[in-house]
């Protein structure tokens, strides 16, 4: 084919070959991963789900409890709500960063990349504590607000839904930026130039060419961020309070404090199924980008 093979592969989204390994060799190569998945993931999760239905005897009582008690449904709803807001915010904040990362060159490119990657390499725990330092009653934000005379009493910033959303958005931002960056980077410069040459203004060229072509990355970034946000534990547990209880915190309480494993299993099952359902729906909804994504 007299065209750029890399471009072609990316656009069509099909790998050129399986790399030339036969079935047996392929199985041997993936067997360590399969073993790890079965022993460290599939078995414990399966055991948890099994317990939710068969402990102490075959019963749906644990699931009935979730539906009967409004608190659990509220927590489930709040979890999805927060995950959605976090994903939307991360997208709005992350896309321009990814765009800048893909466009700038030289020393500035390293600087922008560092701004994205250094947080990613820093422990989630550290970053969550950093937010506590910023937001606590006598923290930096409150000090500044009071010094400027905007408020007499310290504001309640920590342990609010806003704090959870803010901190989670910050922690999850790199997972949004990186996939978008990688698709943007692979879009040849010539496309936007051709659009400009054919009469499109810079915003038009972006909206009609660059943005649609970056949708596969945006889809991947939003999906990863949303799924991570649904099951996020450390940050909500640290900066959130009782009023911002999320599913993962709830499940942790059931397993570590109340030792109610079957009920934790039921909660996990609900979270897992709704996550899978949503991911499937999302892929279906994004099928308009078929032809240049692998969806």
């Amino acid at each position, binding site marked *: 084919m*007299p*065209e750029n093979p890399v471009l072609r592969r990316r656009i069509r989204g099909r790998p050129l070959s399986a790399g030339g390994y036969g079935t047996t060799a392929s199985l041997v190569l993936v067997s360590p991963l399969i073993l790890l998945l079965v022993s460290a993931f599939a078995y414990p999760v399966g055991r948890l789900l099994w317990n939710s239905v068969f402990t102490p005897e075959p019963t749906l009582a644990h699931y009935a409890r979730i539906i009967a008690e409004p608190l659990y449904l509220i927590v489930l709803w709040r979890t999805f709500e927060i995950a959605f807001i976090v994903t939307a915010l991360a997208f709005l904040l992350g896309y321009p960063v990814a765009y800048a990362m893909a466009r700038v060159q030289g020393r500035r490119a390293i600087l922008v990349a560092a701004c994205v990657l250094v947080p990613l390499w820093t422990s989630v725990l550290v970053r969550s504590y950093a937010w506590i330092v910023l937001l606590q009653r006598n923290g930096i934000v409150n000090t500044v607000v009071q010094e400027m005379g905007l408020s007499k009493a310290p504001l309640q910033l920590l342990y609010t839904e806003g704090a959870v959303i803010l901190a989670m958005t910050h922690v999850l931002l790199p997972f949004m930026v990186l996939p978008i960056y990688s698709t943007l980077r692979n879009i040849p410069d*010539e496309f936007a*130039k051709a659009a*400009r*040459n054919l*009469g499109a*203004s810079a915003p038009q060229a972006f909206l009609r060419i660059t943005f649609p072509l970056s949708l596969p990355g945006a889809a991947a970034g939003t999906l990863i961020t949303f799924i991570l946000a649904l099951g996020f534990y450390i940050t909500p547990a640290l900066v959130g309070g009782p009023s911002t209880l999320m599913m993962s915190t709830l499940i942790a309480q059931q397993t570590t404090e109340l030792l109610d494993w079957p009920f934790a299993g039921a909660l996990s099952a609900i979270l897992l199924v709704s996550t899978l359902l949503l991911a499937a729906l999302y892929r279906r909804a994004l099928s308009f980008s078929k032809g*240049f994504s692998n969806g």
Partner: protein
Amino acid sequence: MHGASVSLRELDKRYGRVQAVDQVAIDIRPGEFLSLLGPSGSGKTTLLMMVAGFEQPDSGVIWVGDRDITHVAPNRRDIGMVFQRYALFPHMTIAKNIAFPLRMRRFSKEMMSRAVANALELVQLEGFETRLPSQLSGGQQQRVAVARALVFKPPLLLMDEPLGALDKKLREQMQIEIKRLQQSLGITVIYVTHDQEEALTMSDRIAVMREGHLEQIGSPTELYDAPATAFVADFIGKMNFLDGECLRHDARCFEVAISRSGTIVLDSGSHPLVTSPQRGARVRLAVRPERIELVPYGSQNLNGLVEAVIFVGSSHTFLVRLAGGELLHVQCQASRAGNSLCEGDRVGISIPSNSVLVFPQMEC
């Protein structure tokens, strides 16, 4: 559709310490096919990007017709452009790709579909409307790119090595097609290429670029027969170079010693002298392979040994080694005599005085 005249006035562009474009001035007639020819890094693409509006010249002015477009945004220049790898939008059908410039110009639906149909007919791709670019062959994508660049009837078309990705057969076919299209539409074309054969085939005039400056501009035959510099002589077509020292130069004749190989005596009046060297000056003689004749050994004061005979269908090429070590390419029609020569034969070399170009010896 009428081609516009284009005038590039003393364009300059510097990237850091590199002078990418150096005081380039070219006037292009309406409907002319002008090639910018040069090796990579010669500034030809930068020059094209300036006309398209993707690079700003540090100084100088660009006129298209009677309009100064030096500081006009690229989307307001109304110049068609075919990119190196076509840059067809992969998420749009062929029809949508071609309609894109019309959509940007707010054409009505009916006008748009009529113009798209006409453009596809122009490049002989009727019936491809609903395909995606990835479903087309390289040659077809190339045609779509041309159709998209022409559909809004620009007076000037820029082409940036548009045939580089095609194989030789297809490239030759497309050269003829593009030329035919350009002539029937009367559109002005600026065509960037590093392939001198392509430039010779298609162009009305060729501008040879080198390290940012314009080395020479002229018709293909002018550049071939009367190159202004040794660089142009070397870049356009095949050329033999012989370095030597000027032994004598007066009104009648001009004698050059070619290292240990012998001497060449030229009529002072009958050959294009690029410089007028003094006695003792180092000069570089240039002669085309097809202008050299092989004669019986000893009949000339320049002799050599046939090292190889290459048969290329219509002609033979002889590689002849001179006593001083220089290697000459000599091209003879296949039907001509002298074809009985084979490797190892000694031959005399006859160079007609009027086919030798003399350059000062320096760079290259």
